[in-house]
């Protein structure tokens, strides 16, 4: 139970007035980020990250994770009131959330969505509390070969589990790795892939790429559809909240099911988007009211929101314990750790106890703060959506430019942001997944270092990747995940063919 003691210490860190104020500020900013199209979790965190460079790391990460919670909550507001998913993971929320709003039950839909988010997030945090220290302790035995194997596992599971076109996932990953390699090579001192451009010597910062790919491209996508939003009105008072809460225990099984789906997809990098669809799909299939889904069932709001938040939260587990993020936003937060001078990975739990447990405690508190704030301020944020987009869009673009510039005080980065904005737009139109690229970009250097160190240690003998039980099993799981897609396809083909043959 020593961890429990650390957690209590963590609460003492997180509960200082200073940090609670940061939580409040973060949640509010996060909701704005979640509500506005064109600003999302990864992008919002990326823009604000440079402002935290000089802050104390614990406060900085509390601020940034709170933005993440706020963005997770905020996505539901536009989904229910405007039928516009503010974030990709709230697409499934629109299926039943918007019909409820049309029937004048917007307040109930929002209360259900927020409460479900809260439950999902807390389930994820509880898991992190108990599992992360164990995983980290286990990972302390890892050498470079094992670490490379874990990186390899992450990338393989992206390819194997991803729903997108496999070739496009591979393109996205390889491109991320190549971009990560641009600039001076840390081991040999060679100049790599700069093609004579001096500005590229210091490398391509992933924050600039994130701001371009998630921010600029999102604005371009939104503008395709024109510039007006029409929304429903929502009134949330204490009565509505209490009435909804009284109804929610009925969906206990849905909560549990969605939590499990979300946690599973959060640890494997399936992400919140896949989780929300899986949560919705499972509830539709197994619920007794499943047939009425899509017509304004509260259960259809609860299921995806719970799963999305459980996934969004557990995505932070591998980031904390192994230094491997499970989502794009977690990747940005991980980049933050490195900038604040903390080395992500299992040693964090040994060397930076106060930071880690302060962060975990702040996850509990941040979500409580988030729930209270979001329930009490819905009308305010719904009003943001009524500000004309012709004013919102240039302000967001300006924020993106400022965010890109402040990463390294370089004007060249603003140009890079623009280029990646266009790349992101094209990639989105053609269904290239963006998250693997960001992940590879953040992890690229470390994966490469682990690979090279392992090979240097073994004098170039590739057998270092299967010379002990641990690394062999990691590699075996990776390959299994990599090939899971084709195997599963083959199995389902067999299964569908057999009944057909029997006819």
């Amino acid at each position, binding site marked *: 139970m020593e961890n429990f003691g650390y957690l209590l210490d963590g609460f003492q860190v997180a509960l200082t007035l200073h940090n609670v104020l940061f939580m409040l500020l973060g949640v509010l900013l996060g909701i704005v980020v979640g509500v506005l199209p064109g600003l999302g979790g990864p992008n919002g965190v990326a823009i604000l990250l440079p402002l935290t460079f000089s802050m104390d790391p614990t406060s900085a990460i509390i601020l940034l994770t709170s933005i993440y919670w706020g963005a997770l909550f905020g996505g539901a507001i536009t989904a229910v009131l405007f039928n516009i998913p503010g974030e990709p993971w709230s697409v499934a929320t629109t299926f039943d959330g918007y019909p409820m709003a049309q029937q004048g039950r917007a307040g109930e839909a929002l209360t259900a969505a927020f409460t479900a988010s809260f439950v999902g997030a807390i389930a994820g945090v509880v898991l992190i509390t108990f599992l992360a220290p164990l995983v980290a302790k286990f990972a302390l035995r890892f050498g470079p070969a094992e670490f490379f194997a874990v990186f390899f596992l992450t990338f393989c599971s992206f390819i194997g589990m991803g729903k997108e076109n496999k070739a496009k996932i591979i393109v996205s990953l390889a491109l991320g790795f190549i971009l990560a390699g641009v600039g001076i090579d840390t081991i040999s001192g060679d100049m790599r892939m700069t093609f004579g451009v001096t500005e590229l010597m210091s490398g391509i910062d992933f924050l600039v790429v994130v701001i371009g790919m998630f921010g600029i491209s999102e604005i371009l996508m939104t503008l395709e559809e024109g510039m007006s939003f029409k929304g429903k009105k929502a009134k949330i008072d204490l009565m509505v909240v209490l009435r909804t809460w009284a109804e929610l225990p009925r969906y206990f099984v849905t909560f549990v099911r969605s939590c499990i789906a979300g946690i599973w997809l959060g640890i494997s990098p399936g992400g919140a988007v896949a989780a929300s669809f899986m949560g919705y799909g499972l509830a539709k299939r197994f619920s007794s009211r499943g047939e009425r889904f899509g017509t304004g069932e509260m259960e259809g709001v609860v299921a995806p929101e719970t799963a999305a938040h459980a996934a969004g939260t557990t995505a932070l587990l591998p980031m904390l314990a192994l230094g491997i993020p499970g989502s794009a936003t977690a990747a940005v937060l991980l980049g933050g750790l490195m900038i604040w001078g903390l080395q992500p990975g299992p040693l964090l739990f040994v060397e930076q106890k106060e930071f880690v447990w302060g962060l975990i405690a702040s996850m509990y508190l941040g979500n409580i703060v988030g729930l209270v704030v979001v329930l009490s301020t819905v009308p305010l944020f719904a009003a943001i959506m009524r500000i004309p987009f012709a004013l919102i869009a240039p302000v967001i673009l300006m924020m993106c430019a400022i965010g890109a510039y402040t990463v390294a005080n370089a004007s060249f980065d603003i140009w890079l942001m623009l280029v990646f904005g266009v790349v992101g737009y094209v990639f989105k*139109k053609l269904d290239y997944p963006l998250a693997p690229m960001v992940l590879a970009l953040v992890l690229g250097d470390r994966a490469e270092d682990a690979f*090279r160190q392992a090979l240097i240690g073994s004098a170039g003998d590739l057998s270092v990747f299967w010379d002990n039980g641990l690394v062999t099993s990691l590699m075996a799981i990776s390959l299994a995940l990599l090939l899971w897609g084709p195997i599963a396809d083959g199995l389902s083909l067999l299964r569908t063919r057999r009944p057909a043959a029997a006819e």
Partner: protein
Amino acid sequence: MRLEWPMSSLDPYETEPGLSRRAVECVVAALLGILAVAVLWDSYERGAGWSNGPQSGFFPARMAWILLAAAVVVFVQGLRAESRVVVTWAQLKQVFSVLLPLTVYVFAIGYLGIYVASAFFLAGFMIAFGSFRWWAILAASVLIPLVTFWVFEMQFEVPLPKGPLEAMLGF
């Protein structure tokens, strides 16, 4: 399982003219292939083999080979793709009507500084796409850069690009 999204009941990609998906897929795959070749050239130039450990081009070269292979697959898939419209001309026009001013804005940041450039950008955007009264445009395009200046330069002490106007005022 297919989930219906009630918003897109009328699919504009089947009724309106625009860029064909097949063409865009192939062009993008070809560009990726060219990039992969460029990286391969750069890596082998420096050495992508082995001398007392992997050389600096070792890892990028392997990634570039993977990228090249995947790009070829995407290209072939693109050739076989159904001829659907990926973006309609009307949508593309909307996108460019933002992308071009944005490029000018980024260009202007280098000369005017971010605050003055933003003021013009905000005003231009509001005039072109909104239906605001003149005082609203004036207020927004003056106040927003001013507030930004206050937050970044005064509160966070993060210097942003400045131009002749700020120099004249002594910042």
